[in-house]
């Protein structure tokens, strides 16, 4: 029996007449790499905000790591990690300061922090950059560091919002090595991406179209279901009927 770490039932968010996320129901399992895909404007960001405890749903229910999205948002925040391409680290703090800042927020003790900081810097090969401002690091290093910081407190789930956008092809793959290693440690990965080859690296994929979850399965099953040669074709098949186009 697989442990469920995210469970939603008809989760909905309305803004006036507009239904951004329309009755989505799904489950995510412990240690799973779950791809959350959809066209621009499909309602992904809204759904992710609800799952992270940042936005109160209009109706429906959801539990994240066992906590309720209406009543236990603070517990949710303690048990998840979050990283996006747009916001991750403080550019005007150096590498060590960023690690200590995030570790402090998540309540790691000084001893734990000292240990984790050393471990992380060695693991990422950032010894010579440890005292450099994060703003001066190449994007690929920033993203790898941002991911490691997002899982510093060993959360149950980490939410990654387009973590590899604009990153070079070699670093993009190194980033996925980090994702696999975290998943092997039992951290559940919830990830969005516009790279369809990355969709293949997920255990299961969901596809949002116009606020609705149109498909949810393994990459292999989805390709079979849509009689498609690649995930790109599956995406195209599902998203081309979309009526909404936004960010």
């Amino acid at each position, binding site marked *: 029996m697989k442990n469920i770490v995210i469970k939603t039932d008809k989760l909905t968010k309305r803004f006036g007449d507009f239904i951004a996320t329309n009755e989505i129901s799904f489950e995510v399992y412990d240690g799973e790499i779950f791809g959350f895909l959809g066209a621009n404007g499909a309602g992904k960001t809204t759904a992710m905000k609800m799952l992270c405890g940042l936005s109160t749903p209009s109706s429906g229910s959801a539990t994240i790591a066992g906590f309720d999205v209406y009543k236990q948002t603070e517990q949710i925040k303690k048990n998840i990690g979050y990283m996006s391409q747009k916001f991750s680290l403080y550019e005007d703090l150096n590498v060590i300061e960023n690690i200590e800042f995030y570790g402090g927020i998540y309540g790691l003790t000084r001893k734990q922090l000292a240990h984790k900081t050393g471990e992380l810097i060695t693991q990422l090969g950032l010894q010579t950059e440890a005292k450099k401002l994060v703003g001066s690091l190449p994007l690929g290093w920033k993203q790898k560091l941002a991911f490691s910081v997002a899982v510093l407190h060993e959360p149950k789930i980490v939410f990654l919002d387009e973590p590899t956008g604009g990153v070079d*092809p070699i670093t993009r793959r190194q980033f996925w090595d980090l994702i696999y290693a975290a998943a092997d440690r039992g951290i559940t990965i919830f990830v969005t991406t516009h790279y369809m080859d990355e969709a293949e690296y997920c255990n299961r994929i969901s596809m949002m179209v116009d606020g609705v979850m149109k498909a949810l399965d393994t990459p292999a099953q989805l390709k079979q279901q849509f009689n498609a040669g690649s995930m790109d074709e599956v995406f195209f098949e599902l998203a081309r009927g979309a009526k909404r186009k936004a960010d």
Partner: protein
Amino acid sequence: MNEVIVQQVYKTYQHQEIKAVSDVSFSVKKGELFGLIGPDGAGKTSLIRMLTTLLLPDAGSATVHGFDMVKDFREIRKRVGYMPGKFSLYADLTVEENLSFFATVFNTSIDANYDLIRDIYVQIEPFKNRRAGKLSGGMKQKLALCCALIHRPEVLFLDEPTTGVDTVSRKEFWDMLKRLKQQGITILVSTPYMDEASLCERIALLQAGKIMSIDTPENIVQQYPGKLYAIKSASMSNLLQELRNYAPINSCYAFGEYHHISFEKETSNMQNELIRYLQSKHQHALELKPVQPTIEDCFIKLMNATV
């Protein structure tokens, strides 16, 4: 005739600490659709900003439509269209006001060049009284393209027009570019998406401020040294580890549904030996086949060669 000629251009920032563009030379033919392909930090934006006369180079020279990018900046500005990576129109003006503002700045009118933008503008015309700041991402992008075209430029510079845009909208955007090209406009477009390279006539692969290769996408793929194979098994993550530990493998990395691998030395039984080795490591449902390299494979190969 070359519309854009770039000769040994250099650009650094922060007292030469950051080398954004180093010794870059290339040219773009009249009417060509030319792609600058590379990740963030490759130097794409710096190059485009120098060619649109918004930045001065540290060294080197370039001409656009025959004009020098430093001396003749006024002439160049009249003749190029520029769509920056970041949305840069007036958020508080409506769709129509933005377009008419840019037309006026260039001493022309929407009517005079309407035929050029018609295909694109009709898609946003129903919202012409909406403020630009209130448009969706896709519509903002279309408006920005119309504003960059309204003075009928000789050369159109597009800086990452498809970044963060989903597959369907990306395909639509490239179809628009192809139609513009048919109207004789020279287009220089940058993108971090390697799969878009094949939609350009010629491309430059950029990495860390340097050009690694310039050619047609077909030729770049043909020049890939050695043979490339795709492999998969029931356990892809473990398979990658096993491949990394296997000496006869020269390179291996994840590539969508498969891993791509190349061998140190091509021999007649290397494929069988690899399969036997992996079976001994309890890999099953193995599939191994030769594949055509993609631009992304070439990019990885070139990156590894320069490290």
